[in-house]
């Protein structure tokens, strides 16, 4: 599909549609929607911003390409004055006091936020069922999950309720729901987009990223949000990616895939066959394809969850109801902390906090947490070696098709293992894009750190090839 952003921009400029009509239409769709994608609508602020864009157009002023484009925000980003709940009971009535850097950059470019989107509470989940706002229903088959944790964002884009949405990806939370709902979703190189104003889950892999219906829209939004930010000291300088750069699809000579992802019993037969068929089509274009060795899925999943749980136990320790949140008073301060957290956190969030504190405890940290860090280093080294041999690595997004709503909550271990193909790239802090092609839940394209442009280039190549 071509750029939705550019198409709407043209319609606004040529006065085929007013911005107010456009925003109102999207708000109406969101209000009527039965997929549980919206935690709160930003109706009055969105319509005010739309009126300003209309005034500019009728005065004959030029508008930027993102000006007046309605978008959605996963409900873990700060946007001053809006409810920011993380889909949790604890922050059900919490209002952002300030605005996240990535969101501010979009506001500065004139894009209009219209909805705070449903997700797994604090990003803890792979199905968007761990939420107080009701399970997000898949855009294609509402009996299935929307994927997670950025499920509401993916479904909104897939159903055309938003033009693009901003998700958060810690272990696959943009790429997996993008795959489940057949759209594009990018986890950029770690640090390319500032995390300031994103509620922290696991800070060493948390990434801000766009979900959209075209590669071009992903590129436009990525460029606007990227850049070093003094408020996030892990953020990095990066160059803007031009449309011409990603249109040049002849740069990739060699690609790789992890053979142990494909040659195992856990992968759905259809996904496996479709993936292998895509590999053959790529080979037919004269590209060399190498089968690479990689860590076993259970090692990847366990390393990721060990580190992510340790980090979330630390990050969520601030949520005690003292300064904000749904405080439940008890006889003294310590009891108030404990009751507030016990009553307000979901079972999955508690499971992860407890797991994190387990591995950080004396007697456990050496044999689990520190070993997890060592494994992560080995995984990163493995990627470094691979990218000396290949330009791009491709992989299925998930081993299976989306589960039915209700199934994931019954079996947390199965849910963790379903992240097998996404978490490795998170640990490597690599740029990875889900494209809605190749298998029924898409294909991931990965390049070496900071080579986000190569990922988009190869996506353009695959658009015509598979």
């Amino acid at each position, binding site marked *: 599909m071509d750029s939705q952003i550019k198409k709407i921009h043209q319609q606004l400029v040529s006065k085929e549609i007013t911005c107010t009509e456009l925003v109102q239409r999207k708000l109406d769709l969101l209000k009527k929607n039965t997929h549980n994608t919206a935690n709160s609508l930003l109706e009055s602020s969105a319509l005010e911003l739309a009126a300003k864009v209309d005034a500019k157009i009728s005065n004959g002023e030029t508008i930027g390409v993102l000006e007046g484009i309605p978008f959605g925000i996963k409900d873990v980003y700060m946007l*001053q004055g809006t409810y920011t709940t993380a889909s949790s009971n604890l922050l059900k009535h919490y209002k952002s006091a*300030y605005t996240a850097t990535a969101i501010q950059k979009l506001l500065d470019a004139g894009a209009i936020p219209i909805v705070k989107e449903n997700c797994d509470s604090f990003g803890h989940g792979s199905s968007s069922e761990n939420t107080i706002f009701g399970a997000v229903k898949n855009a294609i088959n509402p009996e299935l999950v929307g994927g997670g944790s950025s499920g509401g964002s993916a479904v909104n884009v897939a159903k055309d309720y938003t033009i693009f949405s901003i998700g958060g990806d810690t272990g696959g939370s943009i790429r997996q729901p993008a795959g489940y709902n057949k759209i594009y979703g990018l986890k950029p190189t770690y640090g390319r987009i500032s995390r300031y104003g994103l509620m922290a889950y696991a800070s060493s892999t948390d990434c801000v990223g766009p979900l959209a219906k075209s590669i071009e829209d992903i590129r436009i939004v990525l460029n606007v949000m990227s850049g070093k930010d003094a408020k996030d000291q892990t953020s990095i300088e990066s160059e803007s990616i031009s449309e011409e750069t990603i249109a040049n699809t002849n740069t990739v000579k060699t690609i790789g895939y992890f053979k142990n992802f494909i040659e195992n019993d856990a992968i759905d037969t259809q996904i496996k066959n479709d993936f292998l068929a895509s590999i053959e089509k790529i080979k037919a274009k004269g590209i060399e394809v190498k089968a690479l060795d990689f860590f076993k899925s259970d090692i990847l999943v366990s390393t990721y969850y060990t580190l992510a*749980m340790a980090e979330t136990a630390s990050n969520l320790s601030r949520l005690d109801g003292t300064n904000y949140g749904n405080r439940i008073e008890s006889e003294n301060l310590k009891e108030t902390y404990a*009751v507030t957290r*016990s009553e307000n956190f979901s079972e999955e969030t508690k499971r992860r906090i407890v797991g994190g504190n387990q591995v950080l405890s004396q007697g456990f940290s050496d044999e689990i947490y520190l070993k997890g860090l060592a494994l992560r280093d080995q995984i990163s080294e493995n990627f470094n070696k691979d990218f000396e041999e290949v330009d791009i690595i491709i992989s299925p997004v998930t081993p299976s098709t989306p589960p039915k709503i209700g199934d994931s909550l019954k079996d947390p271990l199965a849910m963790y293992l379903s992240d097998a193909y996404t978490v490795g790239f998170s640990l490597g802090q690599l740029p990875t894009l889900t494209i809605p092609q190749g298998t029924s839940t898409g294909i991931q394209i990965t390049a070496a750190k900071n080579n986000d442009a190569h990922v988009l280039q190869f996506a353009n190549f695959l658009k015509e090839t598979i």
Partner: protein
Amino acid sequence: MSKIMTVDILSSIKGAQPSEAVNKLFDVIKNAHTENNESFNNVNNNALSVNDLRDDVVIESSAIEKQIIIENFPKEKNGYLVVSKVIEE
């Protein structure tokens, strides 16, 4: 200080217990083979250089920010923001 802290105390979550699903993940790590211990020295690859640290300055919050922070505070009495009783142990 030989007091043993259980996970429910460490997590401030009443009755919290380690979960079977999570323990299975940890068992995989315990049994995993790491190549050598040298990689333990590499773990801080997200560290920043001292020159990259931002200036340590106090930035005044805007009026709207202050107002929202007060609005978010869970309890107010006679114009004061109230916290729970702190006990000495």
